[in-house]
């Protein structure tokens, strides 16, 4: 089982910043990792 993913959540209206674990739905919605910039071959 993989470690839980923690996120920083900041609300600009209240100025409040919290930290919590992501839900399963939030984890499923994460974008696919991008490729690194590759040196010219």
């Amino acid at each position, binding site marked *: 089982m993989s470690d839980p993913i923690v996120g920083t*959540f900041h609300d600009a209206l209240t100025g409040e910043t919290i930290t919590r674990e992501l839900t399963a739905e939030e984890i499923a919605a994460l*974008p696919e990792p991008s490729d690194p910039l590759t040196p010219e071959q």
Partner: protein
Amino acid sequence: MASNYPTSIDSFTDPLSNSPLNNPSHAAQHQDVNDAVEKLETKLGVGSSPASGAASGHVLVANGSGSTTWQAPAVTAAQFANVGLTFITSTTVQSGSGIVTVSNCFSSTYDNYKIIMTGGTHSSGGANLALTLGSANSGYYSSIVYYLYTGGSAQGIGTNNGASFPYAGIARTNWSHMNLDIFNPFASQRTTIGGPFINVDATGNYAGFLDNANSYSSFTLTPNNGTLTGQIITVYGYRKA
């Protein structure tokens, strides 16, 4: 007493209705006033334009050689009130974060925004930071054109209907960089983005758009590996008339 203006404001002795001409000295009173008026004239400068001929908001401008003119300021009050960036919010990424979401930062108050990120650490050496708006997970079109410090030809990577803007910023072991402009995220029209990309091996230019007309009030940054700690993210709005 001689006038001490403009070093300080003078404090004259006013004669009473029954004061004799020698106490306070009538001549000295005239000398004081003459002295003060000459210093005021020197301060204001010469020039024939009267305040009565100046429009509302005009200012007295020095023309050099001791002359002044009432005229419209180079930057009008309306321009001054609507120029530049206005701070909206700032936050520090909490330890070991796999994502960072900033909500309620886009609104009808501004059309366009700038997101700045600096500092902090990355858990495993470095990562690209993907930007998503609201819950949108498709329709992102972007490209990055970059040039390696070691030389060679300019290169590029495109994202065609992707799930994010994948090169919005970077995080390294002990520094990070994001300088991204976001246009019309809250308006019900296409959102466009753009900014410089700076990393340890290359710099480039990154730009793109989100192909829908939805309104967004939040964004999320997701590293393509590892976690973030301590980055400072600040959002500004471009002031508008």
